[in-house]
């Protein structure tokens, strides 16, 4: 039997599925359920996002298709890795790298203090990930703190590409109803139907501000109010500031608000940080800084140096799951999950010795703690 036998599509799928084992449910949304799992051979921890069908009468969900399509093409240290995909019955399963927390958790954890170098480090990683997407002519279209996942080694990664879409083709119309409201660029709020990476940069600017302020910067209650909120915080744009403004679908007259002095609100920020942030929140999308340009901004070269990812502040994880169905290795690994230095736990297969070594670290864990429906790329925007 020397002749190799052809593998058929369904067989490939089954084989892929057999590589992974689901462990525990991490959380659930209307769109998907997320499980913790691992690769059976290498023991690598993964998150398995099971996308439920049945939400869409028309078969496979657009969101699922967008996410799979985008992630299959993107490979970058600051973009979440889609390790594998398989379908089981009528569910689509995305095997993603496992990331235990996100930037929203970090910002909200008041016990954490941010140094300017920390903020610089997160911004740099986020911009690198975003720059890569834009170089591939892909828009993310849903940037916000909880879509920046953070790995155990501190690396920040873009995630949740359920709204992602190619741009550059000037003839294709796109929806302006995209991006979570507080991070939505003004051109979207004004109804633009063909746009570029500048909408992602606006969102990044909002995230930058949020890192500095520890609260969302531009939080409007409705779409119309969002615009007003922006105008009050940044001043109402004029046709001079923003050529073509009046031609946008909703670009009619607005209340005039003056441009406030940003330095007051952002009193902790250095001049170069403020300058970069302002360039990201420029009204005119053509003048708005791009991801590539942002990375060349002096802010990143000036001192202080961006903090090494491993040394960035992290929130304490409360995640501990029930022990059902786990081998003893898995159980021990879970016990030390919360160890602040327990990064070794996630490395391939070598976890055991590292874990054993930490046994005497003196941290006590409450193994019966309630499992909190934690992270893992959960906040999937509802379809369309």
């Amino acid at each position, binding site marked *: 039997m020397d002749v190799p036998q052809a593998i058929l599509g369904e067989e490939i799928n089954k084989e892929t599925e057999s590589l992974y084992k689901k462990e525990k449910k991490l959380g659930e949304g209307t769109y998907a359920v997320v499980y913790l799992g691992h690769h059976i051979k290498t023991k690598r921890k993964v998150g398995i996002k099971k996308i439920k069908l049945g939400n869409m009468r028309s078969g496979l969900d657009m969101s699922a298709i967008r996410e799979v399509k985008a992630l299959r093409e993107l490979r970058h240290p600051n973009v979440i890795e889609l390790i594998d995909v398989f379908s089981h019955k009528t569910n689509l399963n995305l095997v993603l790298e496992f990331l235990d927390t996100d930037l929203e958790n970090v910002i909200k954890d008041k016990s954490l203090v941010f140094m300017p170098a920390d903020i610089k480090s997160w911004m*740099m990683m986020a911009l690198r990930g975003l720059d890569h997407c834009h*170089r591939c002519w892909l828009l993310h279209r849903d940037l916000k703190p909880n879509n920046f996942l953070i790995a155990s080694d501190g690396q920040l990664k873009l995630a949740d590409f359920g709204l992602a879409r190619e*741009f550059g083709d*000037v003839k294709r119309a796109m929806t302006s109803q995209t991006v979570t409201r507080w991070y939505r660029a003004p051109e979207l709020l004004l109804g633009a139907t063909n746009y570029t*990476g500048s*909408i992602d940069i606006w969102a990044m600017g909002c995230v930058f501000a949020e890192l500095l302020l520890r609260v969302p910067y531009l939080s409007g209650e409705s779409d119309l109010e969002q615009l007003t909120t922006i105008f009050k915080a940044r001043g109402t744009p004029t046709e001079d500031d923003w050529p073509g403004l009046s031609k*946008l679908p909703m670009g009619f007259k607005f209340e005039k608000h003056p441009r406030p002095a940003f330095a007051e609100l952002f009193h902790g920020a250095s001049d170069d940080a403020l300058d970069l942030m302002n360039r990201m929140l420029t009204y005119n999308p053509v003048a708005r800084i791009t991801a590539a340009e942002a990375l060349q901004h002096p802010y990143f070269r000036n001192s202080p140096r961006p903090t090494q990812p491993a040394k960035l502040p992290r929130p304490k994880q409360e995640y501990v799951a029930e022990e059902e169905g786990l081998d003893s290795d898995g159980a021990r690994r879970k016990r030390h999950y919360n160890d602040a230095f327990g990064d070794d736990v996630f490395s391939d297969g070598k976890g055991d010795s590292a874990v054993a070594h930490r046994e005497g670290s003196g941290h006590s864990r409450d193994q019966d703690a309630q499992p909190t429906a934690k992270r893992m790329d959960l906040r999937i925007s509802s379809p369309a």
Partner: protein
Amino acid sequence: MSVLQSAQKQEIPAFQTDDDSCPQCKSERYLNNGMRLLVGPCYHRICESCVQQIFDAGPAPCPECRRILRKAEFYQPIFEDLTVENEVRIRMRMAATYNKREEDFKSLKDYNTYLEMVEDLTFRLLYDINTDEAEYLIEKYKRDNTASIEKNQSKFRREEQLQQLISNQERIKHQQQREEYLKQLEEEKREKEVAKYNLINALATSDKDAKDIVKANMVHLKKSSLSNRSATQKPRLDIEALLRNVGGDFDDEDIEEEDEYAPFDPAESPYEPMDVELRSRYDDPNPAFRQGNTLAAAGMTREVHQRYVIEGAIAGLFAQPLHEDMVDAEATEANFRSAESPNS
């Protein structure tokens, strides 16, 4: 380096507002633009001209607290909040004397004890508690520890020097690299020009198949120095050499810090950048732009669109197609199941 020292190094302008006014002569800043408000050791503010008036002749009492001061004791504070200024200065002074570091102690406990002692003295100085005794203790410590204080001071100086040297070296190396690279680019450009010129001539004058002409010309080019372009290595900083320059004995652990000063590029990417140069004008038949500036108002300019299509035209244009020998291993793995190995 303390905040104050670094502040002084960078010459940060002292805090000023338009409302500043001298408590003595009542002159205000907005009427008198160049007015400098100084402070003395008692932290009472007074403008420069008043200082001259009052203290030019010699020591005199401070107008606010009557403490005897000399003209030279007045300076311009950095911080608006003078309690901060005071604290910073006191701590600077303490740090100059109490300059031991954790590695100088046998145990963490000892280091902590030392720190507590220093803080205790500092506290006393700050809040004016038993300052005489505190000053006495400080002087005593100074005398008893002259040697170690000096040793640490020179250690810090050497560290600073090393930092400077490293960054200078980096700068120079980068310069050199850049120049080299530019030179190489020039070279290449020139050679390309010549090659093109020859090729075009050949194409124009001969009536052989274009492909053959190109092939023939290839032989020439391959022999040229273009193909001999050697990869430029990023030179590692020669830390040993630097250390020798700086002199003194360095512990090995100091070298670990080197990584933090290594050059880094914020825009670093695992991929080769696609640098497509756009021309200033294209005859672009795209009807979309005829609608006026709606597209540009949202960021979609002609340039973006042109870059999109031109990158599409260039990316992969010179990709090598698969060869026989490259294929078999990959194809077998991806498309065929080998008869022997069962599914795991």
